[in-house]
């Protein structure tokens, strides 16, 4: 009696704990590292920086303001004539580059002074034009300015602060958005040509590395260079050898990733991306976590142990750097493991408390255990089906009614708007019209020539000839469909194409045209692909069906004096009717979906003349990123295929030979 009560209590305790752990596991998994809003408002932001008594924030509305650690306003400079493009802090002074000048601010009062606006070159004093970035040496005595009046006339200039003396100025050639001091003795410059170059303090240049894309930002930590390209790659480059040590691709995580800032420290690397995401990596660029925001990430910067993120239209958030780098997953697995363990324990106690339930469970468990081989062998099969089959079906069916897209994180239910859009947007209607044309011509193609050829081969007397012709007519199918499509593209080529050469040979030059890009010939050209339309697959099906017709039936008809034409229509055709039905069904299912030929030959063009719904779906799922709309197209096509197949299935096929 007493034991039973203890079991019950233990059951309840374990159950409650396991539920609590499951909830915390879900929370840790779904909840990204906790950030604290420093301030929130709807302004568009530019650059930011931290100083001892708070933060500096540059707005897109040509302002610079200082706020306290709690977000309270300290001072504001609203009299700038340009956006602050770069902010550097040293001691009590902040340096801000805006337009053609570098200003210095007294951090306590906000008093502004012009710090630098000219440099010397060839004995002349010249004003800066369009500064893109500045950098300050660690001791605060030198200022590097990356500036240029145009893309091709970009310079890097190093000034001595205080005296304003120009230490060197060097032409760069392309716009360079990022300059950074590398220790005491050199500067790094990342440019739009993808080059990262090193400049000594006297202006000697050497190449460090060339990246695949323009360099959006460069940071230096220890002896390594951390760089992000605007294409979304992040790399760690050895400062000594110029070798790329580690790399990570943000675009693999988010196609829209466009890094604006990379900052590296002893604990890890953070990358802010203007698509509204903050990525955290460890020093070897192993991914740790990401935080998504509802606006563009304008800038990220370190403030002690905190990482501050300036988000346009949202405000500023600060995150404990360590929390971002922890990667929520470890905790999640711990919670999950304990949760499951406790859940199992709870059930053990429940069974101990109520032996009857126990026996029911034992029976089920026993059944599963008894058939463990069967279930075990089916596990990988149904696992794959669930992940890559049924789950996508479910997502497609549900999200067809949402505005799911690559450009927004939110997914809203929008009812039948996607389906309405198919009508209003118009591409879909063009597509349907073309699809009907292609479908009808396809049906005509597979129901005539391959059938005729099959009958002809079947009618040959010699078995060896039958075999040889079957072999040869099937042989073209070894050519991959992509290759045969490209070969037809070649045939239609306006300069080298076989078709135009044939016309030239027949002195019909006036009919030569650019077949695939001429609106009046594009669709006929697509239909003509595969001439003389002996589809090996249909041919094989017809032919094997004919080979299965009992020879006695045909011989009887022949003795009755039936002509070959009568024999074809009244004996052969009815005998292969079910195969014809299968071919029509498969053709219907494939033709509605298939757009490989269009993708390879015309890309839907000229204009939208050769669009089909499948191609529209492909474009929306990839290039346009309108996933919800693409799902809606897929769902509609599925329904059409489904209903069409059912109707075709209902058509009765009479296999009897009428006698």
């Amino acid at each position: 009696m007493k034991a039973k009560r203890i079991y019950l209590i233990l059951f309840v305790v374990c159950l409650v704990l396991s539920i609590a752990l499951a909830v915390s596991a879900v929370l840790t998994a779904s909840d990204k590292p906790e950030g604290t809003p420093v301030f929130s408002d709807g302004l568009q932001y530019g650059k930011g920086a931290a100083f001892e008594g708070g933060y500096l924030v540059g707005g897109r509305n040509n302002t610079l303001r200082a706020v306290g650690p709690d977000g309270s306003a300290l001072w504001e400079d609203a009299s700038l004539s340009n956006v602050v493009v770069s902010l550097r802090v040293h001691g009590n002074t902040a340096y801000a580059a805006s337009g053609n000048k570098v200003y210095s601010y007294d951090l306590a009062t906000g008093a502004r002074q012009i710090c630098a606006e000219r440099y010397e070159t060839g004995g002349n004093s010249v004003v800066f034009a369009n500064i893109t970035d500045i950098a300050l040496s660690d001791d605060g005595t030198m200022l590097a300015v990356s500036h240029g009046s145009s893309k091709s006339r970009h310079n890097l200039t190093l000034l001595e602060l205080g005296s304003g003396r120009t230490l060197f100025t060097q032409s760069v050639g392309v716009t360079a958005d990022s300059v950074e001091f590398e220790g005491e003795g050199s500067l790094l410059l990342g440019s739009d040509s993808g080059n990262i170059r090193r400049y000594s303090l006297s202006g000697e240049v050497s190449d460090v590395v060339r990246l695949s894309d323009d360099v959006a930002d460069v940071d230096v930590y220890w002896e390594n260079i951390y760089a992000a390209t605007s294409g979304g790659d992040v790399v760690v480059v050895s400062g000594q050898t110029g070798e790329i040590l580690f790399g990570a691709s943000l675009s693999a995580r988010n196609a829209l990733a466009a890094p604006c800032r990379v900052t590296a420290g002893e604990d890890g690397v953070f990358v802010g991306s203007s698509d509204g995401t903050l990525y955290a990596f460890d020093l070897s660029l192993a991914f740790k976590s990401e935080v998504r925001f509802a606006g563009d990430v304008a800038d990220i910067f370190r403030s002690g142990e905190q990482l501050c993120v300036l988000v346009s239209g949202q405000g500023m958030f600060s995150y404990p750097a360590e929390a971002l780098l922890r990667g929520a997953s470890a905790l999640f697995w711990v919670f999950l493991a304990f949760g499951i363990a406790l859940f199992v324990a709870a059930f053990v106690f429940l069974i101990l408390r109520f032996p009857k339930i126990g026996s029911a469970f034992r029976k089920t468990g026993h059944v599963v255990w008894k058939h463990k081989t069967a279930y075990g062998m089916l596990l990988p099969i149904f696992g794959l089906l669930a992940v890559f089959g049924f789950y996508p079906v479910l997502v497609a069916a549900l999200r067809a009614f949402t505005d799911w897209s690559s450009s927004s994180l939110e997914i809203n239910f929008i009812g039948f708007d996607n389906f309405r859009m198919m009508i209003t947007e118009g591409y879909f209607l063009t597509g349907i019209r073309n699809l009907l044309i292609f479908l009808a011509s396809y049906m005509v193609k597979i129901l005539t020539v391959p059938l005729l050829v099959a009958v002809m081969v079947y009618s040959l007397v010699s078995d060896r000839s039958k075999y040889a012709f079957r072999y040869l007519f099937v042989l073209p199918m070894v050519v991959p469909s992509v290759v045969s499509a490209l070969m037809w593209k070649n045939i239609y080529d306006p300069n080298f194409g076989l078709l135009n050469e044939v016309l030239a040979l027949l002195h019909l030059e006036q009919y030569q045209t650019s077949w695939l890009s001429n609106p009046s010939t594009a669709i006929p050209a697509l239909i003509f692909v595969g001439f003389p339309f002996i589809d090996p697959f249909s041919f094989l099906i017809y032919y094997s069906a004919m080979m299965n017709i009992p020879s006695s039936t045909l011989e009887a008809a022949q003795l009755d004096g039936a002509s070959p034409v009568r024999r074809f229509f009244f004996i052969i055709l009815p005998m292969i009717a079910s195969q014809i039905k299968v071919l029509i069904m498969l053709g219907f299912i494939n033709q509605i979906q298939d757009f490989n030929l269009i993708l390879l030959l015309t890309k839907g063009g000229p204009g939208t003349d050769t669009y089909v719904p499948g191609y529209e779906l492909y474009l929306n799922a990839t290039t346009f990123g309108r996933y919800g709309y693409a799902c809606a197209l897929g769902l509609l096509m599925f329904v059409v295929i489904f209903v069409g197949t059912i109707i075709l299935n209902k058509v009765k096929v009479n296999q009897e030979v009428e006698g």
Partner: protein
Amino acid sequence: MLKNKRIYISQTVLYAVLAILLLLAFVPIILMVTVSLKSTYQLNTDFWGLPRPVFWSNYSVALSGIYVNMLNSFLYVVVAVLLLILLAAMGGYVFAVLDFPGKTVLFMVLLSMMMIPAVLTLTPRYVMISDMGLKNNPLALILPWITGGQVMAIVLCRTFIEQSPRAVFESARLDGASEFRIFLSFAAPLSKPILTTVAIMNLISFYNDYLWPLMVIGDAKRQVATVAIESFMADSGNDGMGQSVAGFVLITLPLLILFTFTSRIYMEGLTSGALKA
């Protein structure tokens, strides 16, 4: 005899018509071979002539352009087909021989996947692969390929094993062999013919796949041959027509070789799916 003469004439006409049709059907292939052996100059000046001299260097240029991608194709396809026939053999055996609760329901669930057209799952699968960080990863091809191919494969294997004598399995079971042991030692070797058909059928379809690799593999070095040949053609332009067409021939060769040695199974593989459906 009059009748014999009529048959002779009709047969001759048949041969003639078939020969003409055959020639027309082979036009793209003949064109492919001749263009692949011509230089740009020969194409420009003498389109209809035979390649004289034969321009073999088109092939070496094409090979150096796409051999990486052809190797990728072989690797991905072979791995996928091996995994697929393993799953097909297991699934076929389980559904044909073993009895267990839920067998019918599970088989129906499996069959229901055949009703799902690729267009319905294309978008979510594409986004899912991107979200999983599997883009540019061969698994992004192999796993969906297997998922798509296994359903028909299991159905074919099940039918095949059901038609084979059960006595072997029964006696092995009586001898105390475990189910998995019976599968490995008796069922799998027994299903070799159908597994070969399944393997070839899927090998062709995986090798031919164009759209899915185009979507999920962006890295040119990891790309498969069918997609690579299109960009190779675009890169070569009109001046490199000969070499891009030489690339077409190179990509076709593996399937041609496969067809030459396995033509019966090859044809069976293509039609068995359609006829059993």
